[in-house]
């Protein structure tokens, strides 16, 4: 399992946060579908990354988005929750013979079923946290729930599109001969 946090991840951080602030801030479908694409940074991190490091990265990326959204703490709290749950979900979804050395979060490498299950579970938790922290009360719970589900579908769709466009289907094979 590749667990290195490299320059690639730093570039992904900048790209995803910029995408979030400059583009997806203005792109809201029918006033209900929000896209929080910056969570892709956390989801696409190496599989075997240190848990403490992951939590810290979650806080940093959430807090950065918070500063631009004027929602101090909300996205940070949701991202830290996502970072905490990620290793648990990864454990839950372990393939029959464990993760490979070269496995990474890539739709071509891990397959559609694994990828969709992985992103849907985590995005759902993140969005539930964001929207319910935003309203605080449970008066309009049904409306908030609808918003959460629509946004989860939106974010997941965008993430799959990004995967298909920019992540190579080539499996980086190490020759063991």
């Amino acid at each position, binding site marked *: 399992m590749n667990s290195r946090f490299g320059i690639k991840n730093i570039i992904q951080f900048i790209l995803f946060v910029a995408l979030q602030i400059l583009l997806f801030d203005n792109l809201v479908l029918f006033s209900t579908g929000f896209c929080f694409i910056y969570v892709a940074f956390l989801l696409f991190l190496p599989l075997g990354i240190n848990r403490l490091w992951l939590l810290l990265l979650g*806080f940093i990326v959430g807090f950065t988005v918070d500063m631009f959204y*004027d929602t101090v*703490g909300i996205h*940070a709290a949701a991202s830290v929750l996502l970072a*905490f749950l990620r290793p648990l979900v990864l454990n839950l979804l372990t393939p029959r013979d464990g993760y490979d050395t070269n496995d990474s979060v890539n739709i071509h490498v891990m397959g559609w079923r694994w990828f969709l299950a992985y992103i849907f579970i985590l995005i759902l938790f993140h969005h539930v946290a964001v929207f319910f922290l935003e309203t605080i009360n449970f008066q309009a719970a049904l*409306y908030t729930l609808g918003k959460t589900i629509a946004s989860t579908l939106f974010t997941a769709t965008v993430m799959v599109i990004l995967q298909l466009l920019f992540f190579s289907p080539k499996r980086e094979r190490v020759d063991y001969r």
Partner: protein
Amino acid sequence: MRNLFAFIYRFRAFLVFVLLEALCVYLIVRYNTYQGAAFFNSANKYVGQVLEYQSSVTDYFRLSSINNTLARENAVLRRELMQYRVQEVSDSTAMLDTTIFAATDTSHTAPYILHAGRVINNSVRRMNNYLTLAVGTADGVQPGMGVVSSNGVVGRVKTVSKDYATVTSVLHSQMLVSAKIRKDNTFGTLKWTGGDYRTAILDYIPLHVHPEKGDTVVTSGFNTVFPEGIMVGTITSVEKEQDRSFYTIKVKLAVDFAQLSYVYVVENTTMYEREDLEQQAGILTDEQ
């Protein structure tokens, strides 16, 4: 003791998780209740620069509508100016003033100062919406001042840095605006309950008055944030509910928040004196 450390080490991930979440909740609570003193928001210098750069690109696509608004506003101002000139020429009863405003009425003598500001960040679809303006303390903007556009009430300044200011929009779940129906001066409280960003609720209008569809709602001037008579919106529906002693009135807001590009920050020169007095008397409400 060693066991304790071993325990902490074993559950380090969970403990760090709890710690970070507690920090986040603390930040959320503090930011929601506490005005000013928040550094980590879009009034921050670096965040403001990014947002200003973004709006310098997107503003090009709105130039024609911005021009239209400015031209229309100019026209209205010119018309008013002309009316005053005509009045001045034809009417020399300057002392009439004292019959409307007693000589001791300070609301007549203390003027409001307007600072024009460009909107560089804006949202309308969240539960709590904020704007960021490209004006700051260097331009005379202070926390607590009201913000209006040429069409009506926009919000209230929350935090200010040297060059930028964040504004709590009327579209914020905790923003209350003291407003009145212009027809009969009945005052109530305007608030936004989420959902459609063109519609707000006017509350606490008692049942003995008769508001009608199409009536104009303006600010009451009962506090220091907004001058009296700033446009808020028009009534679109009036409902009487069985178990309430107030009407449920829907108001269509005069300002289209999705189209804001230039706004004015209202400086009330007597704000601090009046607020001090009202605070000492213990009658200051959280309405704006």
